């Protein structure tokens, strides 16, 4: 597949053949706390033309309401119904499969809020450390001797958790190693796009910390899995053939588009570049799903 560079003729063709525009957020609509000039005007124009616009993000630390807030702050028209984030999508996935047990959640308050909205029980939110002064190596050994898993837990959900700790990792690994328990993760993005020199590790590092000793792969809710597109299709009846995914990441946005039968547009305002496409093509096992239709 060749990736075609956008020009006026191509824009007209895309507008003619597309009803639904799906946008990734970070690196597409904004960059961290920074605006990307011209983009909000573009989205407004699309809506004026009668196109449907959706925002699809792997960020698990925001409820749909929180994403709406950020969109509006940056000048993008948004309401809950056209937002899909992984916190909400995980809750919907669990509701759709009729999950009725209790989750051990390695996550954050936004994920908890979305689970509360659909009445799904969970435990594990927040810090989980041995008390100061009692956190020696021997104390950890003692904890391992004393702690017993909660028999009510029937699943593990992993998302961004700034309170990751070794003790929490023991609990999550123990629950997730049990093959009878559901094992889900919001996404495996490596890093948040960042401006300064400080790296902001992504949920991928949290998921690695939990899944590695279990010898299991969690079911991934976020891109590149098609779960969020399936949810959109269910609630809004969108036709993949009349839809395009606009994103900055080959590995998540573009790959999801390929998996769902949508066209894809790589924007260069975020993670990946034109060179990134070449790198994918030249790799030892090239993943054709990551090659965008346009850039």
């Amino acid at each position, binding site marked *: 597949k060749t990736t075609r560079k956008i020009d006026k003729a191509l824009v007209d063709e895309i507008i003619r053949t597309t009803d639904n525009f799906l946008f990734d957020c970070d690196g597409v609509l904004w960059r961290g706390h920074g605006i990307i000039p011209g983009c909000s005007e573009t989205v407004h124009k699309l809506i004026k033309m009668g196109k449907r616009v959706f925002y699809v993000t792997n960020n698990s630390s925001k409820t749909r309401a929180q994403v709406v807030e950020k969109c509006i702050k940056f000048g993008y028209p948004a309401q809950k119904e056209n937002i899909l984030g992984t916190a909400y999508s995980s809750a919907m996935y669990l509701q759709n499969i009729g999950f009725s047990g209790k989750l051990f959640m390695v996550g954050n308050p936004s994920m908890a809020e979305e689970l509360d909205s659909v009445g799904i029980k969970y435990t594990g939110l927040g810090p989980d450390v041995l008390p100061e002064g009692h956190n020696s190596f021997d104390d950890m050994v003692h904890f391992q001797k004393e702690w017993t898993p909660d028999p009510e837990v029937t699943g593990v959900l992993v998302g961004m958790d700034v309170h990751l700790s*070794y003790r929490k990792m023991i609990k999550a690994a*123990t629950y997730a190693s049990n093959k009878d328990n559901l094992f889900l993760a919001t996404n495996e993005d490596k890093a948040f796009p960042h401006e300064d020199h400080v790296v902001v590790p992504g949920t991928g590092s949290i998921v690695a910390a939990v899944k590695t000793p279990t010898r299991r792969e969690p079911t991934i809710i976020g891109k590149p899995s098609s779960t969020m597109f399936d949810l959109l299709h269910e609630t809004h009846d969108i036709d993949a053939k009349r839809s395009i995914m606009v994103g900055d990441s080959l590995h998540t946005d573009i790959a999801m588009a390929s998996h769902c039968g949508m066209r894809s547009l790589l924007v260069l305002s975020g993670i990946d570049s034109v060179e990134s496409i070449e790198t994918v093509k030249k790799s030892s096992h090239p993943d054709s799903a990551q090659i965008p239709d346009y850039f």
Partner: protein
Amino acid sequence: MANNVKKHIDISNFKNILFDCDGVLWHGQKVHNGAVETINRIRAMGKRVLFVTNNSSNARFDYFHKIAVLGFKPVDETDVFCSAHSAALLITKAWKPDSKVFVVGTMAMGHALELLGRKWTGVKPEASLSDYDTSPRNIAANTTDLDDKIDFVLVGLDHNLSYRRLIKAATYLANPDCRLIATNRDQRLVIDQGDRCLTIPGTGVIVRAVEEASGRVAELVGKPERIMFDEMVAEHGIDPSETLIVGDNLETDILFGKNCGITTVLVTSGCSTEEDIERLNIYPDYLLNDINDLLI
């Protein structure tokens, strides 16, 4: 089944025998039945006995002490090869003036570095999160105690792993000249007490978290890499053709033996089982129940 693996060994032709520790000589703090007598008899046969472990929680001296206290008699600290010490040696060889190591691991790893005169930071819990530290970006912005001299990030079993620790490790490793070194990749320990079965994450899990956070791949010091064997050759002048390793882990001990060109014995008194041989496609030269079968 593992049909081509011999079930009986004659150790008379082996001058040097390397023993993994956990699962072979002891289980936690408990000596394996008969192990002390077996080691003593092997020594009495005039053989050289060396101890080799991936466990990063103890320094060379700690193992020397543990081995002695349990009744085994190492002749010298130099009979013990452990990943904390080997990592410190590797880093020392690559040292640049004014350098520092960020240790995502144990106090023992810090001590091993100190013994060789290397400066280090890390190990202690990072500054705890405040009420303002709500998002990953906020926390990163508030992580202001970064050191500008870090040339090595060394990963072992870090019980104080936290998101802030990952921020620091990944930020140091954003510099391509900063090396990522790991003591070992052992993934887990299973505590199975029938009604209570726990999965305890091993160093390999900490390593994977740092690799994902930083996008880098770690250089490994411990088994199955041959670094510790090269140290044995340097310190004791041993000949691989006269050397045997006895271990309980196919992916570390037995692969290590193959990488070093020495004869391998898997004992099933620890983590690997006979079924694992075919599943993992790692075939030891010999398969025994435990260390005592060396003398049958």
